[in-house]
């Protein structure tokens, strides 16, 4: 592994030990670095889909790298920031690809850590600009934010579309159950799926969950 590749080092560290490597110089990434990062993320994704139900969607390189960049910059700016709020936006571009089960799951490889950073930012300064930017992006990739009480708006229509993929639907519901995110079950489509997952054992697994609407 190239030790000069800051972003790869950071993500690798995050994935293996749950820690961040932070650098004080102005964060920037080159396309060669991103290429290596993509390979690493793909490998991680391949390992993870072994445990995914049904047929896992294909790895979406673009989304995975985009997610990794999000978390990388967010972490750097959490610790050290010289930029003005208005300049922050250029580090956090919108995701240009299509929102699909494949892109949600690929981005989740690193994006699942983002809510923790948002929490940290909130404890430092609740009105931080960065929080708004990050929350805006996470709005699309809600799968990564399950269980963190970020009060994201749920668009049921989009979910219905994403849930056509059995793998994504099962993973999404699994995560709602694993994190016991009761507020999400207020949405009919999520509630239905959670009820199906728990079957007649809802009392045993999740007593707060009421299966009748």
């Amino acid at each position, binding site marked *: 592994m190239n030790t000069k590749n800051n972003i790869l080092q950071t993500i690798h560290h995050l994935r293996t030990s749950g820690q961040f490597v932070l650098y004080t110089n102005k964060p920037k990434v080159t396309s060669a670095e991103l290429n290596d990062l993509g390979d690493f993320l793909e490998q991680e994704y391949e390992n993870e889909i*072994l*445990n*995914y*139900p*049904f047929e896992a969607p294909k790895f979406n390189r673009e989304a995975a790298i985009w997610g990794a960049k999000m978390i990388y910059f967010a972490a750097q700016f959490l610790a050290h920031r010289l930029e003005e709020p208005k300049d922050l936006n250029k580090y956090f571009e919108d995701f240009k690809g299509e929102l699909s089960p494949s892109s949600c799951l690929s981005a989740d490889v690193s994006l699942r850590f983002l809510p923790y950073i948002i929490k940290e930012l909130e404890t430092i300064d609740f009105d931080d600009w960065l929080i708004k930017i990050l929350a805006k992006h996470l709005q699309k990739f809600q799968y990564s934010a399950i269980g963190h009480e970020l009060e994201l708006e749920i668009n049921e229509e989009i979910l219905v579309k994403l849930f056509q993929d*059995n793998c994504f639907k*099962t993973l999404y*519901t*699994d995560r709602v*159950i*694993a994190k016991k995110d009761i507020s999400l079950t207020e949405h009919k489509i999520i509630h239905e799926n959670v009820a199906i*997952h*728990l*079957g007649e*054992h809802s009392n*045993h*697994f999740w007593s707060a969950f009421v299966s009748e609407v």
Partner: protein
Amino acid sequence: METDLTQGVTEYWLRLPSKYKHKLSQIRVWKTVRMVTDMDDVWVRGISPNQLNSEEIRSIPFKKIYFQHENALFLLGGNLPEERLKTALLWSPIDKALPAEMPDYNFNYFGVDEKIQFNIVPSSIERSAKAQIVDLTMLDAIIPTMPSIRLQPIEWTLLDDKALLIGTPLLSIPGKTFWQQQQFLLPTGYDFEYPELSSYFNKIINQNSNDYIIVNTDNTYYNVPKDKFKKLTISGYRLSR
């Protein structure tokens, strides 16, 4: 609104005039049951709901069954309290309270070579199943579609072309089910012919006490070491197939 008072009752009490005390001998082997003598009656508590309808209990004459609700004892099926809760009594395990008398040693007895068969018999006491044996072809189809929460409590191991799954709640798939009695996995619907000897059988069969003993309906059995069990996950299953 009227509510069913027996809801959530975990133990039942049994009252019997002292002179019929010997009728309790058949439930003497139940480990959870405790007993006390109060004036002219004996009281037995710790009878679980599924034991209540067993042959052993039903065949005791002159009994009264109670259940406890708050600080009172209600007659089974009744809606009014019958007795205050017995608090000042000294409960003892039923096998201590009803000591068994050994017959005098018989010097003319020559049957010392007789052996007891290890048998299981159909039982009327209902328990929840703890394990199941499932065909692998069935698992192949079903494991990748299972919600992870259902796989979490389950451990599994391979038995030739079948898999043994242990853990509750079991997956809802067809297969042979077993319930657990100490280290024994008995086919559901069966119990030992002599339950009181089960720990003795266990000691003999299960020398290192680290095995599950799976008993078939034809009284044969085989051991499966406990350390052979692994957590059931989709990836683990895919990799071992």
